[in-house]
């Protein structure tokens, strides 16, 4: 497992509850604050909308992407530079977000998660009244 910039990282065994056989991987993410929401972009190649689960429980947001096997069992490996398996990663989300408004979409193996800020934390313009 190499956790450099361009390689795929295995999930450390200590943090994974294995539901099935096989290694899981930590997706690379970008987290960007944009307007009234926080955006999480996660690279989960091979995962479709039907195969992604997003759970939010006690401030912990967990992304799980199930990856079906792509290689036919009757073939022979010549070389392998990366592993194929499910993706999983958990984020701690602070109180300032409106969990009821969380939503996500997936396109070309990239999951985009929208975490809207709670009303009380949104930037607002204060009107200045004339005397």
């Amino acid at each position: 497992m190499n956790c450099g910039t361009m390689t795929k990282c295995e999930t450390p065994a200590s943090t994974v509850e294995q539901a099935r056989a096989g290694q899981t991987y930590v997706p690379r993410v970008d987290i960007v604050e944009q307007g009234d929401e926080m955006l999480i972009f996660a690279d989960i190649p091979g995962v479709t909308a039907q195969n992604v689960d997003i759970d939010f429980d006690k401030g912990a947001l967990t992304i799980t992407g199930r990856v079906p096997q792509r290689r036919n069992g009757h073939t022979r490996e010549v070389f392998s530079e990366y592993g194929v398996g499910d993706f999983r990663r958990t984020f701690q989300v602070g109180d300032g977000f409106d969990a009821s408004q969380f939503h996500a979409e997936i396109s070309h193996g990239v999951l985009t998660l929208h975490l809207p800020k709670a009303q009380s934390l949104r930037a607002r313009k204060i009107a200045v009244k004339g005397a």
Partner: protein
Amino acid sequence: MFTLMRNPTMRPYHDVAREMSRMLDAFANRAPFDSMFDAAVTFPALNLWEDDHKVFVEAELPGVAAKDVEVKVHGNELHIFGKRESTSGDKRNFQRQERVFGEFSRMISLPTPVDAEKIEATLKDGVLTVILPKAETAKARKIAVKAV
């Protein structure tokens, strides 16, 4: 820009560095972090397998549009190159940035001659699959043994 070169003589050193990096990372569910050895890593990583009739090459290219990838075969060399455009929006407000963007290029030698006219490449859910039918001369065949 991450068009990188591979120097096979350095490979064992990078493998050791990678393993050390892995052990350090194994303590937490945390972001992959950069190391000085990254320059030795090639992108995208490739998996290659075969059956009796075809060679299969696969790469993970999440967020890459089909129009931004090119696959070329010249003789025995397979060349996969293109660019990955950033989709993460406004760079000023990054809280975390682990995904990399830019141009990429990989060239590998194929294990057997292939029929260049019949190569198929598909990009689905961020996974590129190239299927290369083996040239007739390269296919395994069963030789009938005649009784005399």
